[in-house]
């Protein structure tokens, strides 16, 4: 048994090493991708383009208008006298937020009446819109608190917030671990999805069937080499995350590798299973895509699972990537250990085992 397995693994490794392009895609591409994505995946909304129409032209109105770009979140792209221009800027996408200070703003303030600021936010990107909105309310609140002109008594209730685990609210700390999961999850399923089908189309599967090799040996032989490459990826990517993006691993690196191993086996096994149910490479390819896409979207990486309708939340329970994202984030950000993460790890092990079993059952060592 062992020798047969060893020889299958050796053959797979020879084939992978010989095809430089595959090696490039399995090792170099993930690193490159992390490098690029690490910069892209920020929800910290910077440079929010702002257009201002200040009809009041008082010192207070100017102060308020200036406080926006000064906060560092907004970029003043245009100042105009015409409210219509505000609209145009929003429609063309040149500005995300428009600030309109009516001409009677200061007069009303002086009279002690309620004074309005009209703010329009382009809600298309509701993410940016929501964040812009919260920035704005914080800005106004801050202005009220610190403004000597206004005679409002200080708030009786002050707020002392403390942010845990990611004090600068750097979304990169939150996103980069997720990106690691994405990169591994997508490539690994794809690489084994074509594995058996290629052998069938080349005629070598027939020859393998005739040999004494057992289905489980063939399954393992085709996944273990890629699991090893995957672990190498994990190491390299973690190093890159740590030293370039300064995303630290708060928890145990050992646990990270163990969890990665189980995840890799599961995701490779999934690809292999797809291989057993596909007749042609094209079929395998499309089926794998059909599986990978929902996994990426429903894994909780970008879109919070708690926000999903219950029925869809149930679906996410069968997506291995979901557990891996939770585990990796927990280890990176919160230093979580086995006590907290064991249910997720168990889920990975169970789903991996099930997939392997199903693949072995399906692969009957017959061609029909």
């Amino acid at each position, binding site marked *: 048994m062992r020798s047969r397995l060893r020889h299958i693994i050796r*053959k797979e490794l020879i084939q992978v090493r010989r095809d430089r392009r595959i090696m490039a895609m399995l090792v170099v591409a993930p690193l490159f991708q992390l490098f690029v994505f690490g910069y892209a995946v920020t929800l910290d909304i910077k440079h929010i383009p702002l257009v201002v129409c200040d009809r009041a032209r008082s010192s207070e109105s100017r102060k308020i208008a200036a406080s926006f770009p000064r906060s560092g979140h907004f970029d003043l792209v245009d100042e105009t006298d015409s409210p219509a221009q505000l609209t145009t800027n929003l429609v063309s996408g040149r500005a995300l937020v428009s600030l309109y200070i009516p001409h009677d703003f200061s007069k009303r303030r002086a009279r002690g009446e309620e004074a309005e600021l009209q703010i329009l936010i382009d809600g298309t990107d509701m993410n940016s819109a929501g964040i812009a909105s919260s920035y704005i309310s914080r800005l106004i609140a801050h202005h009220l608190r610190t403004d000597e002109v206004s005679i409002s008594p200080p708030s009786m209730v002050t707020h002392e917030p403390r942010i845990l685990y990611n004090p600068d609210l750097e979304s990169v700390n939150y996103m980069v671990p997720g990106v690691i999961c994405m990169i591994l999850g997508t490539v690994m399923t794809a690489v084994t999805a074509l594995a058996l089908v290629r052998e069938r189309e080349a*005629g070598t599967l027939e020859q393998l069937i005739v040999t004494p090799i057992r289905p489980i040996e063939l399954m393992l032989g085709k996944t273990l080499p890629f699991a090893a490459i995957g672990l190498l990826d994990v190491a390299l990517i973690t190093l890159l995350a740590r030293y370039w993006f300064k995303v630290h691993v708060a928890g145990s690196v050992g646990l990270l590798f163990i969890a990665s191993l189980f995840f890799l086996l599961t995701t490779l096994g999934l690809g292999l299973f797809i291989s057993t149910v596909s007749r042609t490479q094209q079929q395998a390819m499309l089926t794998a895509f059909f599986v990978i896409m929902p996994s990426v979207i429903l894994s909780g990486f970008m879109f919070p699972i708690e926000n999903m309708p219950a029925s869809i939340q149930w679906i996410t329970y069968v997506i291995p990537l979901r557990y891996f994202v939770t585990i990796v984030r927990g280890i990176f950000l919160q230093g979580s250990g086995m006590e907290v993460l064991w249910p997720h790890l168990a889920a990975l092990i169970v789903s991996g085992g099930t997939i392997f079993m199903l693949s072995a059952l399906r692969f009957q*060592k017959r061609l029909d």
Partner: protein
Amino acid sequence: MTSGTAIDVRGLTKRFGDFIAVDTVSFNIPRGEVFGLLGPNGAGKSTTIRMLCGILLPSAGSGTVAGHDILDEPEAVRSRIGYMSQRFSLYLDLTIGENLEFYGGIYSLNRAQLQERKRWALEMAGLQAREQQLTEDLPAGLRQRLALGCALLHQPEVVFLDEPTAGADPMSRRQFWDVIYRLRAEGATTLVSTHYMDEAERCDRLGFIFAGQLVAIDRPDDLKRAQRAGVIVEVACDRPAAAVETLERTDGIRQARLHGAGIHVSPAVADGAVNAVLAILERHGFSVERAETVEPSLDDIFVSFIQESEERPEAATP
């Protein structure tokens, strides 16, 4: 099943939907025999072999190979057989040496055995100098030899060769058969499928398969002696292609076909066959150089078997 039997097949059948590829085939091959499976393309030779190797599941029937049941004990069968398919099934992105080592390893040869058998295979195939070459870069003829080597690394008791010499030059084919004879000398049994008549002559016994059915099984000499083909008249004349057409259209001629530069004719009646054929040809303006009766070759016998099978359903209809 006696220990002297290598392959025992009973009523083996394979259906693909409505199409019957193999129709209740039965035969028995004793140990050490070189058995040839002869038939045109699509007759069911490959399908039969693949059922015996466990690649396809029979629709009906049973069989044993090397003493083990093909349905109940497929893995036991697989460890005792060697198989070479028409497509050779080699990994093109592996070198010759790597292919040999892989298959040797799959059959669980230990390091020493593997090295020895690899050396044997390289020598047998004449590929010693090319061990590091990529299989992809080998011409087809050499790939055939490599595939044979891979199939025989573990010295199996029973060897299945599916059209192993297809497209090979006569020299290679001769060498191939040297290997097969050597196998027989070592006690192995070989089932080889072919549609080369000269190869068929070299087998100990032959089975004719046509349209999924085993229409005849016997030693080559016995098949020829059975005289089923009746009389064969060999003719050398001008415009042989046209002559064949003319003869086929004439009553009293069962079959006529090109044979080398001349024609082989199977008349319906044996007596006076030569004169009858001469008369027909001269009537139609052909100048005949030579016309004489000849021993039917396996070729002729085979064709007549096919004809008989084709005629049989007609005989059955009321």
